[in-house]
């Protein structure tokens, strides 16, 4: 069936199209060339006056896996307060901050998103993450496997293993977990916390292994580069939330030694120590550092005021953050000699100096990093705020007047400590399309996503040209997933299944024997039970593999 999407204004930054009126054609789930003369169009959808973008891609959102489920378990109040009723075609669900899987998929689609990447897949928990993925409708999914606090890698580094041996292990982990990239969280710090270290700076050694965060960052960024994995190392830097942590953040950028590196939720890592309260914005400083480096990309992790919950792999920092838990409860977990997780509810308040400044710092980063291709729009859902706040965040980026009005409600001291009031930049729709689909697709190495040229997957979102941008992005007029309409006027038409995006870089099979020995002696599980076969992902819509560049070492 050939569908024609006629007369919409196209925002397709990957192909350099900025609001031009064009027709799009869709067949068998893909965008296709215009039909030849006499070739019939089966359905024409008139999009005159509407704004057309590729489906949204969230490259950092905690929507599945063990720690999200732990957060759900801890917050019955969120689920009781936000029920979602079953319909003829849709499952019931609940929750606003950490919604159940069905509710998550439906809500993302209702906002025009068609792909969501879970950035923190603990390898031992990967099967769980994929099982949740199978129950998360509407979305293509993918994950970043967490390394850098696992005993196996730290042991390799402590004993001076060569880079190729590490590359084999990293490649094995990517295949075993069916993930799209690698993330490191507080490099070496989650492990250090298990040895009762309470803080770890980039050049400080883990007490047991003698390995520094800098070494871990250098080795892993190099590993992905040499394996040809498109997605740069995804980094949650040391000292999250600590005043003065911008220095660790700069050291983290440097540790990649010029190789590609992505700093996630940079907002939480952009704090100085100036002022009477010893807490200040280092966003201008860090934005300048990002602007000056071609190898660095970021996402912001904007906070929004209101109730949320933080769910992080960073047990070391979450243990410290327990002091600010609101409501006052928290959970931590040490996991399988490879990782950890911590869940701490938070209530961000605009009259709090610290919270208000966090809000300001996030926006400063958005506005000061010059190249939109270097920035992805995130709230680090749910850590900064639930993903449902994206339309409001977009409006803040597009409207300096709105920002200034919002400032009036803020803690005055925080307001004074920020340069936001003087920042006039307003994002264009084209730039928003970069931040929310084109940029993330490029960063992830999803070549047929995030754009609208023939051959791309027909994940397409159509918005009304509403001057109220929050309303515009809250209620897409139409969303197509794989070429089929799934949402109209912000309302779900029917559930569909997405697929899993992954990479399978090559490894030397010799690594398998070493891992089998290690697993058997220490972990008490067989590697074949740890790894996930392609067939296991059938229910999740199957796995779509993305090519890696040729392996270098």
């Amino acid at each position: 069936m050939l569908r024609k999407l006629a007369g919409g204004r196209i925002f397709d930054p990957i192909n350099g199209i900025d609001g031009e009126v064009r027709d799009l054609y869709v067949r068998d789930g893909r965008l296709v060339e215009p039909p030849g003369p006499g070739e019939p169009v089966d359905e024409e959808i008139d999009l005159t006056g509407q704004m057309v973008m590729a489906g949204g891609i969230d490259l950092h959102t905690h929507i599945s896996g063990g720690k999200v489920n732990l957060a759900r378990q801890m917050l019955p109040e969120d689920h009781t307060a936000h029920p979602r009723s079953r319909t003829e075609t849709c499952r019931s669900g609940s929750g606003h901050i950490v919604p159940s899987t069905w509710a998550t998929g439906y809500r993302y689609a209702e906002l025009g998103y068609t792909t969501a990447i879970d950035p923190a897949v603990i390898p031992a928990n990967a099967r769980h993450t994929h099982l949740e993925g199978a129950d998360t409708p509407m979305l293509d999914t993918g994950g970043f496997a967490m390394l850098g606090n696992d005993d196996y890698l730290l042991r390799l580094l402590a004993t001076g293993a060569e880079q190729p041996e590490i590359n084999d292990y990293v490649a094995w982990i990517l295949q075993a977990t069916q993930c799209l990239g690698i993330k490191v969280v507080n490099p070496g710090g989650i492990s250090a916390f298990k040895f009762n270290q309470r803080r770890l700076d980039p050049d400080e050694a883990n007490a047991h292994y003698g390995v520094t965060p800098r070494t871990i960052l250098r080795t892993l960024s190099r590993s992905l580069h040499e394996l040809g994995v498109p997605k740069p190392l995804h980094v949650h830097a040391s000292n999250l939330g600590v005043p003065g942590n911008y220095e660790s953040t700069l050291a983290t950028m440097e540790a990649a030694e010029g190789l590609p590196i992505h700093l996630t939720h940079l907002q939480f890592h952009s704090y100085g120590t100036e002022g009477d309260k010893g807490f200040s914005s280092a966003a201008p400083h860090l934005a300048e550092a990002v602007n000056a480096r071609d190898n660095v990309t970021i996402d912001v992790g904007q906070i929004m005021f209101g109730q949320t919950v933080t769910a992080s792999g960073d047990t070391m920092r979450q243990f410290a953050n327990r002091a600010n838990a609101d409501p006052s409860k928290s959970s931590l977990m040490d996991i399988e000699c490879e990782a950890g997780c911590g869940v701490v509810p938070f209530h961000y308040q605009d009259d709090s100096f610290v919270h208000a400044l966090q809000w300001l710092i996030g926006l400063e980063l958005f506005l000061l990093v010059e190249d939109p291709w270097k920035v992805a729009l995130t709230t680090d859902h749910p850590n900064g705020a639930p993903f449902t706040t994206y339309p409001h965040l977009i409006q803040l980026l597009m409207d300096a007047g709105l920002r200034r009005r919002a400032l009036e409600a803020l803690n005055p001291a925080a307001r004074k400590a920020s340069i936001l009031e003087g920042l006039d930049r307003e994002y264009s729709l084209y730039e928003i399309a970069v931040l929310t689909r084109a940029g993330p697709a490029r960063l992830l190495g999803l070549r047929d996503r995030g754009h609208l040229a023939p051959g791309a997957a027909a994940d397409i979102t159509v918005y009304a040209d509403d001057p109220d941008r929050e309303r515009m992005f809250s209620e897409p007029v139409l969303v197509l997933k794989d070429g089929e309409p799934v949402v109209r006027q912000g309302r779900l038409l029917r559930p569909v299944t997405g697929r899993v995006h992954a990479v399978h870089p090559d490894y030397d099979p010799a690594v398998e024997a070493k891992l089998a020995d290690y697993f058997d002696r220490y972990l008490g599980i067989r590697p074949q039970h740890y790894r996930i076969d392609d067939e296991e992902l059938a229910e999740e819509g199957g796995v779509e593999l993305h090519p890696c560049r040729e392996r270098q070492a």
Partner: protein
Amino acid sequence: MTDNGSSRTLRDVVCPFCGLGCDDLTVAAQGRTLTVREGVCPISEVAFSAHPEEDRPRTDGQEASLDQALARAAEVLRPARRPLVAGLGTDGAGIRSALRLADRIGAGVDHLHGAAGMRNTAVVQTTGWITTTLAEARNRADLWILAGSDVGRRYPRFFERIARPSETLFEPPPNQRPIVFIGPETAAANLPADDRIERIPCAEDRIGEVFAALRALEAGRPLFEAEPGGVPAERLRALAERLPRARYGVIAWDAGELDFPGGDLAVEAITGLIDQLNAHTRWAGLPLGGRDGATTFGQACTWQTGFPGRVDLGPGYPRHAPHQLEAGRFAAEEADAVLWISAFDAGRLPPDTEAPTVVLGRSAMAPEREPTAYIPVGVPGLDHGGQAYRMDGVMALPLARLRESDLPSTADAIAGIEQRL
């Protein structure tokens, strides 16, 4: 299915029964008869070999075809206004399918170990907790406290695989790690002979008092009793002094055994002590459990509905009902139809009820009251593949099919019922 006489040896078999998740079993298969040859324990020995014959479906007490039984099950569930879907002792796909059906018919949901799940959940919901996983504890624990659990009987390979493995990544050597057991003599009798296991006798239902006293001692507060929980204060004082000196202490409990009023408060006393100790050193809890798919259920129910069990889908959306949805009470007093699932254990029988009941059970199940429809299903990990969570909720292990079977899986049977609704 006939016994074709050929014998096969299956290696690296995952055991889905007690929740410990041993994945190193060697099993001999002769036709449908399975015998665990290596990695055996008293539970797996029986659970793999029990009743290899396959039952036939029955409707209203008469043998029936699978098709007839599925149709009869649909007839029971279709008109129900207050159905109950319970038991749920099965694999991941079976549980997820059962939740889908429950959502569709607006059922109440409870797992057969729902009471144990709610004791832990009460603590997670009110204070949260600090926990660890099996491999982490195995490699790191330098002081173990077993809080009341009859570990030797309920998790027979716990010592071999977790508390006393042959090798660990970190010091001290595994055989030198002190283990303190606090609990009833009956459970102490099932501990291995090991001079590094210390036994502190304590009645099952007084565990919470002991941990409350340890909390007080650890915080430097006075004790008001000579024998908190029946344990001489001196003994607790000596233990309390050792706690902060551990580098990574682990306290294990099994909420399924804390089956007395205030069982959740006993859990909270344990996790509260752990919380305090983490101010200076590292301690973590290890909640034991997970038989009959309890951990799998807790995870899947949480991600699908937002609540970890005892959920009412009657309103058209999930509502948490930890007391109302106790399956036995709900079946007796509210339900007008019951779907009971126990695919691992034929001995887990449906609740007593006047309401028509559909049973998806492991062959040889003998309910006291004949179900309206009885559908024998395959045993996950024996008759069909799937996934089962280990007790720590982190590892979901893949299950394999070990023998030919004509029985539907739980998920197949439920899909069959749904088609006929």
